[in-house]
């Protein structure tokens, strides 16, 4: 059984890479019927959804580098679809997170205002830049995420001595029931100005690359501001639903959202996430993290090489 559990995840990861590589080989093949691409996209997104949930990262983070590296769609449309994938996932999870107290509207709103405004700027800059430059930057950012995932230590219940004056004025605190320990956990945050600044930067990256921003939201809320890990993850979803809304409108207005790419991606990701959520209880988090770091690292190198023209 010890072998079977990691294998449950290794198999979809290998199939994901194989399917992506096959897509790359047949890239541009005009003989392939049109429906091959959305169907392949749906399958790949299903596999991304399966491994993204147990890894604790948004599907959007894997979507853009993998699809951008191995599918024939232009990066403009992939980023538009990536934002929609991240938005749909955040919207679907939002109500449950808010009702349970794992997501906090009070904590999310101030962060979301700044991140939303900067995501518009990021989206506009990203759409104005040449594709190879965006691809190179994307590769660099994805490899940065890999390093962040590799090095970052998460704190389940950070100790916050006292809230800073801004957090106190905005009453950025709350309470939630931790089902794992059967405890009622009150929480508060500190370093709010630094947190607000970090969300300004996170918004630019989310808009520019269409990769969602859960990978950055959670460390900012948890390690920097001191929110409990579960509250940080839940509130990150609420922030994402607002930030990606703004950026998605920019892509929509520019004509960079193609339903034929976006809808199969959303459907595949949501179905895969359901399976991933079930695997969450049986898989070892460390195994999943190592696997995702490997897949993400490969996609990041591929994006970098594609952008530089070494591996077009």
């Amino acid at each position, binding site marked *: 059984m010890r072998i079977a559990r990691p294998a449950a995840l290794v198999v979809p990861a290998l199939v994901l890479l194989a399917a992506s590589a096959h897509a790359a080989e047949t890239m541009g093949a005009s003989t*392939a*019927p*049109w*429906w091959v*691409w*959305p169907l392949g996209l749906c399958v790949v997104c299903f596999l991304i959804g399966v491994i993204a949930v147990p890894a604790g990262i948004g599907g959007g983070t894997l979507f853009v580098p993998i699809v951008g590296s191995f599918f*024939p*769609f*232009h990066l*403009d*449309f992939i980023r538009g679809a990536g934002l*929609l994938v991240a*938005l*749909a996932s955040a*919207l*679907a999870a*939002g*109500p449950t997170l*808010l*009702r*349970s*107290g794992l997501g*906090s*509207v*009070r904590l999310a*709103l101030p962060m*979301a*205002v700044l991140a*939303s*405004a900067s995501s518009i700027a990021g989206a*506009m800059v990203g*759409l104005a830049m040449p*594709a190879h430059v965006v691809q190179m930057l994307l590769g660099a950012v994805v490899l940065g995420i890999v390093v962040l995932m590799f090095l970052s230590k998460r704190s389940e219940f950070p100790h916050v001595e006292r809230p800073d004056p801004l957090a106190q004025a*905005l009453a950025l605190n709350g*309470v*939630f*029931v931790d089902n794992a*320990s*059967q405890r*009622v956990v009150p929480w508060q945050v500190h370093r709010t100005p630094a947190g607000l600044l970090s969300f300004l930067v996170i918004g630019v990256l989310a808009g520019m690359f269409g990769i969602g921003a859960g990978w950055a939201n959670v460390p900012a809320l948890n390690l920097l501001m001191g929110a409990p890990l579960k509250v940080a993850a839940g509130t990150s979803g609420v922030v994402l639903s*607002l930030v990606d*809304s*703004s*950026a*998605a*409108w*920019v892509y*929509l*207005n*520019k*004509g*960079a*959202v*193609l*339903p*034929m*790419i*976006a*809808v199969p991606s*959303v459907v595949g990701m949501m179905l895969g996430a359901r399976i991933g959520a079930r695997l969450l209880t049986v898989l070892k988090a460390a195994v999943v993290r190592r696997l995702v770091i490997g897949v993400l690292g490969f996609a990041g190198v591929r994006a970098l090489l594609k952008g530089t023209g070494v591996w077009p």
Partner: protein
Amino acid sequence: MKSLPEQVVVQPPEQLRYARLLEWGTRVGMAVLLLSFAAYVLGLAESHVPVAKLPELWIHPVGRFLELTQSPTGWGWLALLHRGDIAGLLGIAILSGASVLCLLALVPIYLARGERIFAAVCLAEVAVVVLAASDWLAGPH
């Protein structure tokens, strides 16, 4: 292991209202998105861009794609909602705009409690989303 206290933890009313409206907005948006896409791929509605031509078009940057397909930008898609591929954008627009209604619904709660700062934060977020949706920032396409 500590046992859960008797009292039930109730989340603030604004959070529950936000959750309820977000749930409905997402359901409507997803339903419109999936139904319109089904009509599109099953050929029940005529497409603005024939599906068979897509593989030779989606390899181009968005500017070139729009040029080749004479597709609309901004809110121009509203006039072409009867086309299968364009109809999908309505579901995407509903999903992208779902948060606006939720935020507006919080303003009276915050004002009634005297939390003017949070009412202003909600309105600021609405202004940002509306600005993004207005296409005003994007300039000429």
